[in-house]
């Protein structure tokens, strides 16, 4: 079998699954629109209209946040640890960071840096609770993180009322002093919208995620544990330690999710602070198959749909809910398409192994049974 042919075939395999998934979810979304009585033509023409410059910046901003959330979830997923608690972790982190930054004990960039570290540590510890329960008491992290999400929501709400300031209907933490704000980057002049400065965390986290996972022994152990926990244990990996460490890392990244908006836009944590990003991150990680580039594409697709949902509502009266349904359908289709692709790949590979053996076998006289 020739090598170049293999390579092209491999690339086709890689692309086939996501393309298939997107086409399939497009069809399902159209059927849903028909069934609910909306105009399919309007839906597609608006969805596929090139976004304005302002929208492009919005897509990047929201995409960066989704990316952080996706990586936070993916760290756990890579070792079969289902951290469903990114939602709660980032809210704890964002709140803790906002309280500290708003208190004004420190000023300028130092305040920003320490506040970000506090956000990461508090979110990591919150995630660590689930890791600790898993290794000491065998509690499934799925259940504990879901419950911790609820607890985080109430806890943050309680302390917000207790520590926050009332302004009109809204309650929020004290504003971050202006000296600690992180300015935006005017990437598209005249769009009137700036890229949040801390969105660049997404790039840093993405590179680190790739580097640690693929180039370090720790990353190898993490992937090995995900691939086969029994084989990892037998090879000398301390799986309990890995569970705790990866929960902590996952939580630390979750702690970053709220930072771009906190220091670049909202300047405080209030009752209107964006929620649901943690759950969206799980979908994004699934969509990107926990791969650093894949998660980026997934985050951008979700962010794009999120942005276009407003236009659908304004221009065609299509409920934004239909976009959320479409996002869900995409995730389902991707999961199915990748599994199909995986099975096809395994079969092709086994056939190629057999072919390689067959050639060698025919060179010998003896035929092993």
């Amino acid at each position, binding site marked *: *079998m020739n090598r170049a042919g293999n390579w092209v075939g491999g690339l086709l395999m890689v692309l086939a699954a996501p393309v298939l998934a997107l086409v399939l979810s497009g069809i399902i979304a159209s059927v849903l629109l028909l069934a609910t009585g909306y105009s399919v033509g309007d839906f597609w023409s608006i969805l596929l209209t090139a976004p304005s410059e302002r929208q492009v910046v919005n897509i990047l901003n929201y995409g960066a946040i989704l990316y952080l959330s996706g990586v936070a979830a993916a760290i756990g997923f890579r070792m079969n640890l289902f951290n469903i608690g990114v939602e709660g972790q980032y809210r704890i982190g964002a709140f803790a960071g906002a309280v500290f930054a708003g208190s004004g004990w420190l000023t300028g960039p130092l305040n920003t840096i320490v506040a970000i570290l506090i956000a990461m540590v508090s979110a990591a510890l919150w995630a660590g609770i689930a890791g600790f329960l898993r290794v000491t008491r065998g509690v499934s992290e799925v259940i504990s993180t879901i419950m911790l999400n609820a607890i985080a929501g109430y806890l943050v709400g309680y302390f917000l009322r207790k520590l926050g300031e009332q302004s009109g209907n809204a309650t929020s933490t004290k504003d971050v002093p202006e000296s600690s704000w992180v300015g935006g980057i005017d990437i598209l002049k005249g769009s009137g919208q700036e890229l949040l400065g801390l969105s660049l965390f997404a790039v840093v986290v993405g590179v680190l995620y790739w580097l640690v996972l*693929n*180039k*370090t*022994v*720790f*990353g*190898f*152990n993490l*992937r*090995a544990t995900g*691939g*086969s926990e*029994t*084989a*990892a*244990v*037998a*090879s*000398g*990996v*301390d799986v309990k330690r890995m569970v705790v460490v990866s929960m902590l890392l996952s939580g630390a990244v979750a702690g970053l999710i709220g930072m771009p908006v906190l220091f670049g836009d909202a300047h405080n944590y209030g009752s209107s602070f964006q929620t649901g990003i943690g759950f969206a991150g799980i979908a994004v990680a699934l969509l990107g198959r926990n791969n650093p580039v894949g998660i980026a594409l997934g985050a951008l697709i979700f962010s794009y749909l999120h942005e276009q949902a407003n236009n659908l509502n304004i221009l065609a009266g299509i409920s934004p809910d239909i976009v959320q349904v479409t996002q869900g359908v995409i995730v389902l289709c991707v999961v199915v398409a990748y599994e199909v692709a995986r099975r096809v790949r*395994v079969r092709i*590979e*086994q*056939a*190629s*192994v*057999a*072919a*390689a*053996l067959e050639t*060698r076998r025919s060179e010998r006289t003896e035929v*092993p*049974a």
Partner: protein
Amino acid sequence: MTTTSPQLRGTVAVRVEGIGKSFPGVIANHDVSFAIERGTIHALVGENGAGKSTLMKILYGVQKPDEGTIEVNGEQVGFSSPSDAIARGIGMVFQHFQLADNLTVLENVVLGAEKLHGIGQAAREEVLRISREYGFDLDPDELVERLGVGQRQRVEILKVLYRGARIIILDEPTAVLVPQEVDALFANLRELKAEGHTLIFISHKLDEVRAIADDITVIRRGTTVASVKPDEVTTRELAELMVGSELPSPSTEESTVTDVVRLELEDVTVRDGAGRELLADIDFTIHAGEVLGIAGVEGNGQTELVATVTGLLRATGGRISLGEEDITDWSTRRRREAGIGVIPEDRHRHGLLLDAPLWENRILGHQSRPPSSRGGWINRGGARTDTQRIVGQYDVRTPSIDTTARALSGGNQQKFIVGREMSGDPVLLIAAHPTRGVDVGAQAAIWDHIRDARREGLAVLLISADLDELIGLSDTIRVLLRGRIVAAFDPQTVTPQELGSAMTGAGEDA
């Protein structure tokens, strides 16, 4: 092929003619032919990996044969799923029980067969009737989790009877049983035979086969090589039929045993969470250049012994030393770094990342050592080069080192593991069933590698269910029974019969 002409005792229940099955890289069947008479117990014997399970999967409709025919009760059949087989009255009792622990006996039996007698009183009466008729002594309302192994097996048999099976395939039914349970099972089987059922008994335990079977068909390297009557052959003859000329002769090589102690276990005891003894007072020493073989019926502590030496299980008493060092409290990683190589019993669960490429599998177990890594960083180049070396040196048949481990055949996976575990200057090699499920060619190669390891001065702990392998490779043999070492033998003088009786505790009271 030497087929004895079957005396007509009844009509033929199952006739298999020229069955062939090939699939990528796995031992296949070719030209498999035999006939099973109704109302008899027919044993299919063969080594692990000889193709017995493929054949059974074909008979039970899990896999389709590429060629050949199957006749059931004189009618040619083509099964495309187990439900087709069940409809023809063929049932299968798997080696690994397929029971739901948290359901009762009755619930387990009716699960999936609700249409037959419902799930209520009628079903209960049917279960009770079968249990009484064959002396199974099962309470339909007992939870399966409270049952012992022998009772669980009876539930499995009850399940297939409930579904109306007249032809029952039993896949290595005695592998998990202690001797008394084996006797009870055999009593049940004779009862079933008396009622006119046809039983296909798969095993590689020849004494048992001779005790229970009416006819024996021997499978070797994927094909039927002989059909014999149990009273016409000795166990030794049967063994030779099974392994052919591949029977390893006891090592005539000069002893390489030195007086350097590599591994020493002193009064090692392991208890599980409930305080039961898994291993008790294990005492032995392996010197450099010595192969110590552990014989025993499976489930008598072999798995636990390996786990205890590798650090997966902690000894609750006693002391384990590697060379001069007390490693009793060391982690698995530290032990591996100190030079313990392991060929695991279950290579898929403990030896490989099936979906990772071979070169990544080279790193597994060597994460912290060159050439796999350098100070916390994976050394991709080093690992790849060394994988190439293993592939060449150990004759691993693979198109490339980027092929996933899953795609390789069992024998090639095993050769790869042997090569990996022999890397990085090991001082102790633990080989648990090293040739299980591998083809004959790979088997000979692996034996050679173990002999090489011994010659190079490694201490080797060999665990095997294959007595000839143990006798052929070991310098000394210990017998493990119910977690204790009950006998020691010199492989130069011991016979399989002596080993066999020590393994089953037959000579215990003597």
